[in-house]
């Protein structure tokens, strides 16, 4: 039998460093499944949802059936996939739209995670299976009108009254707030910050959606209003007191973000690459101009570097070696570079780059939120600054 000559290593424009090769079969399959779902269920509708400013709630149970909600947790109807697989799922979702990745991040990492980690057995049984199935939607209330980067300054209070708790305060910028069946609300109690599960319909608890957003339009962002909301002791998360509670949740969600934004960047890179080869000016494709090639190559470099960072942090998380500062590294670098890639793609598409017919301006606008939420780029910069100098600069 003729032996085939050793194949010369190939370079793939869409996976230049062959990161695919680093993944395990199961991870690749999970990625492909989510990619197909995004292609079939999200891409056909996204322009319309974004333009109208709606999140299609009917997708939630579909995300649940697929297994994406709380996928990295164990038990109670969740799947317990690896951190790398969770990251890959975030990447594929955000390649569709950051709004859907946000939905999954909030549901899994910000609402299910605290119940799973700090909740009572009763709370876990009551909420987690339904949340994993997408039948109950959760939100996470930490930020307040006067308390953003410094959440420890929160004013929302939890006061004891007999055996009950009374909650008062406002939470602002809360993803999923208006469609949530339950809110995990963080409030100041006598002994420190405590978490509470506030079911929709609790007396004194209302929500108001924020309209006129130009970013994350296919995602609901709301205000939570708590006026003398009386909750039984069983509504409090028993196993955590202090800022450690909400911060640990954010750390989980940020980890998903540092993967997710690679997806948004990939979509913009692919769109720009394709466009540059088919759009002709001065009698030739714009890809033949050196300035365009330089843009494409810079995008290629940063996209692949960001993907490698995500992959590396994923493996570290799976090995239990990931510190919060590592997550800051990934979030800061990857969101910043993703935004830069998308903006550069926009210049290649020029006028077409500003319409919803192409995904580029939508991703740019979405990433403006992603740059801010889950710790602004400034705060992550100062977290890293502290990590290497030992000097805290943000207080």
């Amino acid at each position, binding site marked *: *039998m*003729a032996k*085939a000559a050793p*194949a010369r290593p190939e370079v793939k424009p869409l996976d230049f460093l062959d990161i695919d090769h680093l993944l395990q*079969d*199961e991870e690749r*399959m*999970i990625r492909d*499944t989510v990619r*197909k*779902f995004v292609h079939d269920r999200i891409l056909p509708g996204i322009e319309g949802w974004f333009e109208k400013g709606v999140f299609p709630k009917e997708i939630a149970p579909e995300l649940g*059936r*697929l*297994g*994406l909600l709380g*996928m990295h947790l164990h038990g109670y109807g969740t*799947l*317990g*996939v690896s951190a790398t*697989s969770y990251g890959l*799922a975030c990447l594929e979702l955000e390649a569709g739209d950051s709004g859907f990745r946000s939905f999954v991040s909030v549901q899994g990492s910000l609402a299910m995670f605290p119940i799973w980690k700090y909740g009572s057995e009763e709370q876990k049984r009551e909420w987690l299976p339904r949340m994993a199935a997408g039948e109950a939607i959760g939100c996470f209330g930490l930020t307040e009108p006067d308390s953003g980067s410094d959440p420890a300054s929160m004013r929302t209070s939890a006061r004891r009254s007999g055996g009950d708790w009374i909650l008062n305060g406002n939470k602002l910028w809360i993803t999923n707030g208006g469609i949530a069946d339950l809110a995990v609300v963080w409030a100041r109690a006598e002994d420190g910050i405590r978490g509470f599960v506030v079911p929709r319909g609790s007396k004194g608890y209302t929500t108001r959606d924020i309209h006129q957003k130009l970013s994350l339009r296919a995602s609901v962002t709301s205000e939570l209003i708590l006026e003398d909301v009386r909750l039984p002791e069983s509504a409090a998360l028993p196993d955590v007191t202090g800022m450690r509670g909400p911060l640990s949740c954010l750390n989980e969600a940020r980890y998903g973000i540092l993967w997710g934004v690679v997806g948004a960047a990939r979509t913009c890179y692919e769109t720009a690459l394709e466009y540059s080869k088919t759009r002709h000016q001065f009698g030739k494709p714009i890809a033949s101009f050196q300035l365009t090639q330089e843009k494409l190559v810079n995008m290629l470099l940063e996209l692949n570097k960001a993907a490698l960072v995500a992959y590396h942090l994923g493996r570290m998380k799976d090995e239990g070696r990931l510190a919060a500062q590592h997550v800051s590294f990934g979030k800061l670098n990857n969101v910043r570079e993703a935004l830069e890639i998308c903006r550069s793609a926009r210049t290649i598409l020029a006028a077409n780059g500003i319409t919803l017919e192409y995904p580029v301006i939508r991703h740019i606008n979405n990433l403006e939120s992603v740059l801010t939420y889950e710790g602004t780029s400034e705060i992550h910069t100062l977290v890293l600054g502290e990590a290497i100098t030992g000097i805290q600069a943000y207080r």
Partner: protein
Amino acid sequence: MTPSAIIKLRFIAFTEKARLKIVVTVKQIPDPNATLKLTSDNRLARDGEVVLDPGDEYGVEAALRIKEAADEAEVVLVSMGPAKAADAIRKGLSMGADRAIHISDDGLAGADALTTAQVLTAAIKGESPDLVVCGCESTDGSTGMVPPMIAELLGFPQLTFAKQVEVSGSKVTIQRQTDVGYDVVEADTPALITVTAGVGEPRYASLKGIMAARSKEVKKVGLGDLGVTRGKPAEEVLEVVEAEKRQAGEVIEDDGNAVEKIVALLAKVKAV
């Protein structure tokens, strides 16, 4: 309840819950979206990315739908191929098949259709299935010969080009896709069917399915285990010739009866 009544009840439960066993043949093929290369002996180079043959995804889908409609059924995948075929098998298991047999043997490289059919038959026989489900043809080799050969070697009736399948008792009924509609065809089980894309969009391997596939049994067997020795190939591919370039399309100018002309053209190519 008297003891005899209990025995009777048990007996009924047992007979009514007759377990249906479905074997699906699956194959891993070079990713059809990648550029395909030939080796010097006119075989497809199989060193690149591989995927579960899209035609076989319909086979798995059809089997899973039959299983869901049945009281109790088991779907067993049978695949012949190199170590890499494990990926295709895992995909099928992730979609929901119960277990798999992976026939892998260095002595099988470059097997022709007849050898493939003989080997698959040997493995299928060991399972004594009620139903064998195949794609109509593989997407890479495209000979379309293997399923009929298997049916012949097993001595099973074969129902081809099924766009819908129903199993009831010991009968299998299919809608056989034709150019103009479908025929309804029936056979006694055990039988072999080949399915078209008409059976329905293959389901996603859900994450749950992917995780569950980890613990499903994949039995690895070689030629010796099956008691098959490889005979002389019955065929050889002598030459591979590229398809003719497509002719430029026909432009119909509208001189008042363009609609009729277009309809006539469409009818000619059987598009309407």
